[in-house]
């Protein structure tokens, strides 16, 4: 079952993506059970109690607690399951969005109609210095390291979306929003914009290059010889 569900998603290469996917599966199992139960009951009642000559419907108004228990108890179960999913969700949320883990790898990504401007601080790890490098739509990072992204926008709202890293965060003009991710596997992954940003929204797409440590060192050497 879990394999079928994973097949719907793009490959997960995120350090926290597994938890999002697991939460998705948990909700799917809980809601799936309710789906089968409720739809099954509807179908069963519709067939079992279809009109037949000579049989009258029962007068059951559900106006006393004894009868209402039939719907109140399931509602209570729904409430408990809701709370369970809420608290499971709160843990995962706190881990991903609650705080940004320590990182010495900072990148500034600025959305603009219709590209991602990616600013690398260079060896001095400071933005706004001479060794900064600006690239369009190419985000090069080392794999297996926490990357801190400072998201900005020059014009309208964009949304920084890394499907394989299970990360999405809006970039809002006037704000610097911090997000983070850690790629667990080297590779080239899509980086589309997920928020309608104008006539060129379709095709606003960058790439994340997660390099192995050696490859990253090689790439950095080319940029900052």
């Amino acid at each position, binding site marked *: 079952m879990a394999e079928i569900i994973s097949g*719907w*998603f*793009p490959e997960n290469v995120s350090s926290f993506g597994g*938890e*999002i996917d697991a939460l*998705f599966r948990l909700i*799917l199992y809980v*809601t799936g059970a*309710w*789906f089968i139960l*409720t739809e099954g*009951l*509807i179908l069963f*009642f*519709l067939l079992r*109690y*279809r*009109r*037949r000559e000579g049989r*009258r*419907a029962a*007068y*059951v*108004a*559900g*106006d006393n607690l004894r*009868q209402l228990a*039939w*719907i*109140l108890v*399931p*509602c209570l179960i*729904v409430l408990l399951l*809701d*709370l369970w*999913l*809420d608290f499971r*969700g*709160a843990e995962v*949320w706190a881990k991903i*969005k609650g705080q940004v883990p320590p990182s010495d790898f900072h990148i500034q990504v600025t959305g603009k109609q219709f590209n991602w401007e990616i600013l690398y601080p260079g060896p001095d790890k400071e933005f706004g210095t001479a060794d900064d490098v600006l690239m369009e739509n190419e985000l090069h990072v080392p794999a297996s390291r926490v990357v801190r992204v400072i998201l900005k926008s020059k014009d*309208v*709202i964009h949304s920084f*979306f890394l499907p394989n890293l299970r990360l*999405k*965060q*809006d970039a*809002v*003009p*006037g*704000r610097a*929003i911090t997000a983070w991710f850690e790629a667990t596997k080297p590779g080239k992954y899509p980086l589309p914009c*997920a*928020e*309608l940003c*104008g*006539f*060129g*929204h*379709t095709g606003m797409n960058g790439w994340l290059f997660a390099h192995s440590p050696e490859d990253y060192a090689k790439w950095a050497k080319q940029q900052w010889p």
Partner: protein
Amino acid sequence: MNSTSPNAESVAHDAEPGFWRAYLFSTDHKRIAKQYLSVALFWAVMGGLTAYLMRWQLAYPDTEVPGWGFIAPDFYNMLVTMHGTIMVFFVAMPILLAAFGNFLIPLMIGARDMAFPRLNMLSFWVFALASLVLLTSLFVPGGAASAGWTGYPPLSAKPEYTGVTWGLNLWLLALALEFASFLMGGVNFLTTAINMRAPGMSFFRLPLLVWMELTAAVIFMLSVGPLIAGAVMLLMDRVVGTTFFLPEGGGEPLLWQHLFWFFGHPEVYVILLPGFGLILEIIPVFSRKPIFGYRPIIYSTIVAGALSFVVWAHHQFLSGMDPRLAMPFSITTIIISVPFALIVFAMIATLWRGSITFSTPMLFAMGTLSVFIFGGLTGIFNGSAPVDIYIHDTYFIVAHFHYTLFSAVFFAGFAGLTYWFPKMFGRMMNEQLGKLHFWLTFVFFNAVFIPMHVVGLGGMMRRISDPTQYEFLRPLQPLNQFITVAAILLLLSQLVFVVNFFRSLICGKVAERNPWQANTLEWRVPSPPPHENFDAIPVVYHGPYEYNSSEAAVDWLPQDRRVTTGAATR
């Protein structure tokens, strides 16, 4: 003439209402309901057309759409924007609130008309004006609004970001007019249902539809204020150079999102509740049983209405608002499933040990229920903030809200139209065509929207015009084409309804007063009801759902029929 006294007014005009009074500037709630219905059905065709164009472009990007031509990216954005705007504000609300509410509230509570018939007429004409403005906005130079139906600034706040000038201004104006219209309608609904109930029609003898319409009207009136203010601010940003939502002038783009969704999420329930109300009337009639848990349903509705005001920020988990805010909103959002679960369970329990007839209205009611359950359950995924990180702004969301809204607007709408058609137009609809229409709609609806969840989980973003431009979405293209074919078939299936509607209007079997043997008061008057509705105001002795009660010899007991044996207190 005193507008608070519809009785006096109509006596003067009843004898010979001229063409203008009878058809255009009528103050009769039934006529006004049909006016709303006609305009909404026109917009439904437009909404369907936008869906067709979008689906074609998504399946076969940059090919000529049969019967139309090529679709440029900016035109696609206009389609996205207009589809949402039209379907929510110009189809769902006019049909579910204005048409059914107007037609049924006075009849169901035993009143001769709305409390303010002239205000009612005015609200329709303001709505007609809103429709005209929206229609105009499609044809002005620069094109129609293209910033999404949510109109997020800065994209919507500066013409140079979209290239759209007057199209977007007129779009805002149309929305403001529409809100004004529904505010008038809401005032009317509330006043009517509180003050004009027939003797004996206590609040707990009101049909559930009336409760649902009232709750929806209250939710609407309480939530729309901030958005009207927001719309005016956005219009000012566009035309007089203010910067409420523009950071370069110290404004805040997120402010709009809060104003929009503080209204936008309650709006979902403004649409859902009347949809539920319609099928809550239909299920007991075709199960020949009282609705299970009448009072708990009412309490649940009120709880859901109250909760709907504290869930809005679940649209903004990733908007840049403080992430600590996500959890409270995630919890309220998921908890709102409880009152809705109760209503759903109550509907299911009503079927238990019933005597169920599969008429067209009942089939559509069951379609509403089964489709809504699916949509309600997928809402849990979206409400869970961590899962939303991935599925936000993907087709999973699109699929989810079509499961909830299509069920309320179209399945429940068709249930209501086929059920009350005899009362509205005095003729029966054709059952064979009705059933054919139901099954085609049910099958193709699911064929469109179940695969759409999978496309969304594959990562396909909303509001992109060409998935093939993204390498990672290309494997999903066969699924996108399947969805498009199913969507076209879903749209074509509606022709069955169109044929049935007009055919029945002209040559359907003449309807009697009460073809379904139902209890509520609208079935106690001729079909269609005359001006003023009732010869004499009825006196109500029972709740609305006394089917198979031991107090009556037959299996139904109209609300105004007095039973002489024993106390009829229900």
